[in-house]
C-alpha cells in the first residue's frame, strides 16, 4: 500500500498528522508531509482512516 499526496490541494487542515502521526507530519507551514509513502502492513487501517478524513481530497491510497 502506497500513499499519494497531491500537495497542491493541501491547505493545512492537519487532519492527517493529527490522526496518524506515524505516517504524516507537518511541514514548516503546517501542510502535509508523508513520512514514508510505503505503508507498513501494521499501519494499513491507520492509513485508510487518515486518507478518508482529508477534507481537500489531497490524499489517496494505492492498494497493493
Amino acid at each position, binding site marked *: 500500500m502506497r500513499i499519494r499526496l497531491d500537495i497542491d490541494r493541501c*491547505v*493545512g*487542515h*492537519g*487532519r492527517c*498528522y*493529527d490522526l496518524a502521526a506515524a505516517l504524516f507530519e*507537518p511541514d*514548516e*507551514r*503546517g*501542510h502535509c508531509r508523508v513520512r514514508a509513502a510505503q505503508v507498513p502492513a501494521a499501519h494499513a487501517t491507520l492509513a485508510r*482512516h487518515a486518507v*478518508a*478524513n*482529508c*477534507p*481537500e481530497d489531497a490524499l489517496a491510497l494505492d492498494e497493493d
Partner: protein
Amino acid sequence: MRKENPDAAGVLNLVEQQFVACPQPAYATLLARHRVATAAVIGAPILSRYEDVVWALRHPQLFSSQMDIHLGLGTERPMIPLQYDPPAQTRYRKILDQRFSRDRSLELEPAVRRHANQLIDGFIDQGRCEFDAAFAIPLPCRAFLSLMGLPQEDLDLFIELKDGIIRPPVPPADLVAAFEFRRDTGQRIYAYFEGVIDARLAEPRDDVMSYLTAAEIDGERLTRHEILDICFLFLLGGLDTVTASLGCMLAYLAGHPEQRRRLARDPALIPSAVEELLRWETPVMLVPRVTTQAVTVGDVELPAGALVNLLLGAADVDEAEFSDATRVDFARERNRHVAFGGGPHRCLGSHLARMELRAALAEWHRRIPEYDLQPGETPRVSHGIREVQYLPLVWPADAGTAAAP
C-alpha cells in the same frame, strides 16, 4: 402558527430564533428541495450541498473573498488575509500559517488549561453559572491575550472592542448609528495596536505581535498597515468563533446527558467528539463570497457580482457526504466537516481553536462532569455566528471535587 422556514419557494430567514437555535431540520429541507435557496430580505443565493459548498470554497477565482463589506465593519482597508484572494492572500498565509501551526498552537495549551481552571474556580461552588458570560466569552479572550503577548488586564477592553464591531450597542434598525459606532471602535482598535507595534519594535518578545513586526515576505517586512489589518481580523475572527463553539457544545451536552456522561467517563473521546460537535453544530453557519463571473449551479445561473452565502452548517449534515448525518456519533470514522471552511481560506486559527476546545472540554468535564440546563430556562442563540448568549447551567454544588492541577 410558525411560518415554514425555509418557505415553499426556498426563502430562508437566517435570523429567526428557532432556526439559529436548531437549524438542522431547515438544513434537511434545503438539501432535499432547494439546491440554490434565497436569503430572506437581502435576497442573496444560498448554497447548501456539501459538493457545491466545497467546490465554491476551493475556487476563489469564481467565488471571491475579496469584497467591500469591510467598509461596514469599522475598518479602513480590507482585513488580511481573509479579504484578499490568492496570490496576494497566499503570500500572507505563508508567514501566518507558520505561526498558527498545530505545534505552535499546542505551546499555548498549558496557559489555556490554567485560564479554564481559574474561571471554573470562580463559580464552581455556586453550583450554577451563565455559561456564556462566565466561561465561553472570557476563555478565548484570555487565550488571545496570551498568544498576542498582551496584558490580561486588557480583557474587558478587548471584549468591549470586539463587541463594538460585531454587535454595536445601538438600536438594531439604526444603521447610521451602527456604522458610526463601528467606525469609532475601529479607530480605537487601530490606535491600540499601533501602540503595541511601537512597543514590540523597541523591545521584541516571544509573542505574535513581535512575530508580526519581524516577519518578512520575500525579504520585506510587513508594513504597519498590513500588521494592523491582520490584528483587526484576529480580534474579529479569533474570539467570537471559539466563544460560539463552546456555547453550542455545552448546550448540546447539557441536553444530551448520555453523550455527556460518555465524554466525562472517557476523555480520550474528546478530540473526535470536538470534530463531531463542530460538524453537527457548525457554529459559523455560513460564509459569504462574491461571484467574479456568471456561475451555474444545478439549473440556476448566479450572475457575476452576486453575494453568495455558503451554508457550511447545511453542508455538514448532507447525507451525500456523511453517513447517518443526523446522528451525533463521537466515534464517527469519516468526518470531513467544513466547520473551518476549506480551500485557501481554511480558518487560519483552526489549530488554535481545536486546542482551545479540547482543553476547555477536558477541564470542564474533569471538574464539572454532571450539569443540566437550569429548569424552565431556554438558551438564546445569536444569528450569523451562533453564540449561545444565554445558557444558564446548574450542577450539584458539591460536585467540584477535583481541584486545579
